[in-house]
Structure formats: structure tokens, C-alpha cells
């Protein structure tokens, strides 16, 4: 069979899948784009065409800028912490020790739990009256009075980041662990013979194997961190005084609470665009890293 007819055949076989993709992704996306140029309400009227009005209003609003900064802060810090913690945990779990299998199973638990459960759990831990965190910190003498972790703008975002890390670092660890197990034994053994210390071994022998998979984890986590909603909604609903309001919460309020579907759609598309740009930048980086290692 010639190459061209193989290609035709491949396309033909993929047609049903493409049709489904267009139906479940393409159509709603096109619909959202259309909606974003109107002043449609969620229920009731269909809305009038208003051009790029929604976009101009969104980008120029101080609410949007403040929320963008908060979301970026949340994403950068939590993803960075998750990467570091994840790699450290993977290195640890890659060692031979008694109870390793049990520990591996336990570690994945926070990630496997639904986010709402996680968030509720952490709300209890942070509870200003009965929370475990206050109790623990006062008992070891680090704190003299109970604090309101989620009620102060200074600590609310940080508390959310900790909760998010606890939930998501296991995913990074899992990916890193899988990559670590692909590192050939003889190479690590050879590096030992050559007298490489632990840091040199990590940097020059292990890291090259980790780079690709970690990049994937980084892309996944960054995209999700920019879209964070449920953990924030359950724990603070964006408070206190909007200090933890992320982009997704802003979209939710605009589109659903205030029922401005048109303006909510424009906001959602701006967030999508931001995430797409980030993903593209990462993808370029991955290609470069992969190229340099080959």
C-alpha cells in the first residue's frame, strides 16, 4: 500500500473521533466566542452584539488586574513548591527501605481524594477555634494565641497554597518516580565508581532522565493552578476582602452569580488564552530540552 493511501485511510479512520471532538470541544468553544461579543444574560434574552466591549471592559477593570496578580502568585509559588517536594519525595521513595510500598500507596492518597474533600479537611485544620494547626503550633510553643489563618489577607493565600501543595505534589512525585526507575543501574553505578558526589550524581546523571517527564508535570500543574477554583471556593470563597479571589472565581461570579453570560464568556476566553500561551511556551521549552539531551 502506498504512503498516500495510508494517510487517507488514517484520516478516514480518525473521522469519527474528529467529529466527536468538534462536537464536544469545537462547538461549545465557538459558541463561547460568539457569546463573548454579546451582552447576553444567563437566562432570558439572547443578547445584542456589542463587539469587543466585554474584552475592553474586562482588561481595563482593576478587579481583573488584581485577580490576575493573585492567581499568578498562587500558580508560581504552589507549582514551584510542588515540583521541589515532588522530586524530593520521588528520590526518597526510590530508595530501598522497609515499608516503601505502603508509603508509596499512602502518598498518592491526597491526590486521589476529591478536591472538595481535601479543601474541607484543610478548612478544619485551619479552623480558628478548633483547628489542628493552631493546637499544634501553640503546643510546641511557636504561637501564643490562636490565629485566623483563612480570615487574614496576609495568611489566607499562603494557607491555600499549602493546601494545594499537599494535594498536588504527589502527582509530581509519581511522575518523577516513574522516570527515576528508568535510570539504568549501570550508569549510576559507573558514576559512583567515577567518584561523583550525591549532588553531582543528581545533576549530571539523574536529572537528564527526569527533565522530560518533569516538564510534563510542570505544564499540567501550571495549567491547573491557573484555573484553580474548587479549593478556593470551599475554603474562602475568595475572601477575606477578595484577597484570595482567583480568575476562575471571577469568571464564576460574572457568568453565574451575576448572570452576565457575555462578559463571563469574554473573561473565560482571556483565561483560556493565557493558559494556552503558557502551555505553548512550555511546549517550546520541552522541545529544546529534549533536543539538547538527544
Amino acid at each position, binding site marked *: 500500500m502506498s504512503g498516500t493511501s495510508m494517510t487517507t485511510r488514517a484520516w478516514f479512520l480518525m473521522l469519527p473521533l474528529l467529529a466527536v471532538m468538534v462536537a464536544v470541544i469545537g462547538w461549545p468553544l465557538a*459558541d463561547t466566542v*460568539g*457569546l463573548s461579543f454579546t451582552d447576553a*444574560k*444567563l*437566562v*432570558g434574552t*439572547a443578547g445584542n452584539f456589542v463587539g469587543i466591549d466585554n474584552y475592553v471592559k474586562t482588561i481595563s477593570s482593576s478587579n481583573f488586574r488584581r485577580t490576575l496578580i493573585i492567581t499568578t502568585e498562587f500558580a508560581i509559588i504552589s507549582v514551584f513548591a510542588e515540583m521541589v517536594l515532588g522530586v524530593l519525595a520521588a528520590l526518597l521513595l526510590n530508595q530501598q527501605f522497609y515499608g516503601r510500598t505502603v508509603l508509596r500507596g499512602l502518598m498518592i492518597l491526597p491526590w486521589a481524594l476529591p478536591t472538595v474533600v481535601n479543601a474541607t479537611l484543610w478548612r478544619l485544620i485551619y479552623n*480558628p*477555634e*478548633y483547628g489542628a494547626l493552631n493546637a499544634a503550633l501553640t503546643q510546641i510553643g511557636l504561637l501564643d494565641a490562636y490565629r*485566623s489563618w*483563612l*480570615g*487574614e*489577607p496576609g495568611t489566607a493565600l499562603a494557607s491555600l497554597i499549602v493546601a494545594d501543595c499537599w494535594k498536588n505534589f504527589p502527582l509530581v512525585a509519581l511522575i518523577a518516580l516513574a522516570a527515576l526507575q528508568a535510570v539504568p543501574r549501570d550508569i549510576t553505578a559507573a558514576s559512583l565508581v567515577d567518584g561523583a558526589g550525591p549532588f553531582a550524581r543528581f545533576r549530571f546523571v539523574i536529572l537528564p532522565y527526569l527533565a522530560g517527564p518533569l516538564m510534563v508535570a510542570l505544564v499540567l500543574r501550571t495549567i491547573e493552578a491557573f484555573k484553580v477554583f474548587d479549593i478556593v471556593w470551599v475554603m*474562602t*470563597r*475568595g*475572601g*477575606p*476582602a*477578595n484577597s484570595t479571589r482567583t480568575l476562575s472565581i471571577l469568571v*464564576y*461570579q460574572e457568568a*453565574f*452569580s*451575576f*448572570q452576565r*453570560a457575555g462578559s463571563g464568556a469574554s473573561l473565560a476566553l482571556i483565561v483560556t488564552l493565557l493558559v494556552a500561551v503558557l502551555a505553548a511556551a512550555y511546549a517550546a521549552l520541552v522541545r529544546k530540552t529534549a533536543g539538547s539531551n538527544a
Partner: protein
Amino acid sequence: MFKSKRNALLGATLIGAFFATNAYAETTLNALFMAQAAYSEADVRAMTEAFSKANPDVKVNLEFVPYEGLHDKTVLAQGSGGGYDVVLFDVIWPAEYATNKVLVDVSSRITDDMTKGVLPGAWTTVQYDGAYYGMPWILDTKYLFYNKDILEKAGIKAPPKTWDELAEQAKIIKDKGLLATPITWSWSQAEAAICDYTTLVSAYGGKFLDGGKPAFQTGGGLDALKYMVSSYTSGISNPNSKEFLEEDVRKVFENGEAAFALNWTYMYNLANAGKDSKVAGKVGVVPAPGVAGKSEVSAVNGSMGLGITSTSKHPDDAWKYITFMTSQEVQNQYAKLSLPIWASSYEDPAVTKGQEELIGAAKLGLAAMYPRPTTPKYQELSTALQQAIQEALLGQASPEDALKTAAENSGL
């Protein structure tokens, strides 16, 4: 989008019609309730079971969401073509629901017996622009609860009649070392904070809107926020109030860690007779205080109603269900968690027995219920006010500036 929605709806209707005429005559209603306060989930299930027993041809599917999700879930279901026949709605939503045609006008279904029997104040819960959008179901306002034990230890003879007196009594309790922070509120960035604020606005004789424009940034509206801020900064109020919802307030009060708490009716029997309550038997309740020269008592209208959605295909059965749920018999039977909407129930010993104090407070409080503004843009106004309250409490803005910003962001 709209064309395809219509097609989908048409398809669903056709399938529905097929089953309705050929398979069986039973109808199924979908109802949305909330999973907290007032009637508990178990109560609503029990009431519904009784309804199904009396009406075997009508089946009711119940769904429960937290109060914070009730509005958005209702609107979302409606936006995507419906799903519920009966929905529970808060007193602040009829304006928006009526404007956006979420609920149907049921004015013609309301009988003379209903009009005469139900307390006049309760009707304001379901009314907008002269029409009725459902039946009132949970009649509620915030009361001032107090711990009799602590007041006695502090040598206080009677609970406060004014907000200033409340501050003074709290100060005495604090100074005597009985409690570090005697007052507890629900000031989380949520509707709960607006309910506490509204109670104070009514005490200070303030107004939310004047001719459709924000008017809370001066006068009574400003005094109300100033009171909250001074109560917070002077240390007589629990600082964690700014992340509390009603259930947090209840837990703190039931643990004996508050001398005063502002909360809904449901807390009375749970705190005074509940087995988890450390203050059982010591709970006092009075209407929320007034302000000298301005008001005797204060109260927010926190009632809720049951309505029929405009997408319901069984409005008659839905109404049958609503009239059952709001009937005097059912309401009297469950009067321990939510007081009935029927005037004559308050003379019935089955309702009043064991909660005479609450009924006494209710007679004054329910008569003084102050509404939050009826505007289709209520959610925006409320969100802006929630932010203002928190900014003022946290000292990020003066009460004047915070409310001015809220007025600008209210969308009105």
C-alpha cells in the same frame, strides 16, 4: 445555541410525552432544597414521604445543596433548559427570578384561606412587583441569643435592649475575665455578613436604596458598619467572626465561648436542647436590639419560599406539593426548627410548648423584619457589600470609603 436548545427540548418533550401517555401516568417532580439550618434534610425527606403517601401518583426527587450554592444551582439549571420543578428560594431572589423568568407567577393559585391565614410579613418573602412567585415556607429572622449563665456571673440583670447596651454588657463580661471575646457573628465573605449588617441597618433606621440608587453609604447604613467595626476593633467581638458562617457561630455559642450571638431561629432548640450543646438549658433569646430614639428592636427578613420554575412540565403537581409543604399541619409538626407562617399557629400549644421564650422574641422580631433590597442586581450589590464589610473590618478602608466603593461597584 438557542435553536439547538429548542430542538433538544422538543426531543425531550416528545420522549416525555411518549412515556406519559403510553407507559404510566405517574409524574416525577424534581425539587431543590438546601442542606442546612431551619428544616433539616431528614425533616424535608419525612415531609415529602408524607406527601407521597397522600399522593401516590406523584413522585418527588429531592436534591440538597448548601445555601451558598442554592442560587447559582437554580439559575444554572434554568440556563441549561431546566431540571427542577420546585425550588427553594431566598427572600432576596424573587426580583431577579421574576425579571429573568426563572419562577412562574402563582398569584392566581393563592386562595383566600391562604391570604387570610398567613402572617402578612411572610408574604413579602415571595412578592415582587405586586405578584406572588411562590409560598413562604421558612419564616426567619436573626435573634440575639445569650448565655444566661455568663450574664448572671457578670451580674447583668437583663439582656440588652439597645446595641450600645450590648457593647457595654460585653465589655463588662470581658473586663471580668469571663470571656475574652463575648460576641460572635457570621461575617465571612458571604450572604451571612449581609444579614447581620441588615439587622443593624434596620436598627439605625438606614436605607439600602433610594429611588433605585445606593443609599447605604450615609446615614443608618454607615452607622451600621461603624458599629460592626468598633465592635471588632474594641475586642469585644470574636475576631474569627470574619471567617464564620452561621454554623460556626452555633458551634462557638454551644461550646460556651460566646455570651452573645446573632443567629437564626434554628439555633434555639439545637443550642438549648441539643445533646452536643454545652449550654443546654441556659440559652436565652430576645429580638435583636434597637437604637435609642430610632428603634425598639431590629430584624432582617431571612425567610425563604417555595416556587415553581418556568420550565416545569407539571406545575399543577408542583403546586400540590408546595401547598402540602407549607400547610399549617406540616409546619406545626416541625415548628421546633422553623416557626410557622400561619398566624393562628402561635396560639397552638403544640407549637409554643417548650419554646415560649423564642415565640415571645418572634412576636417582636417577625413584626420588625427589614427587607434586603429588592433588585434584579441583588447578587452584585451583595458581593460589593460583602467586600466593603471585610475591608472595613480589616482596616483596609474606612467605613465611609468602603461603602462608597461598594456603591460604585453595586451595578446600580
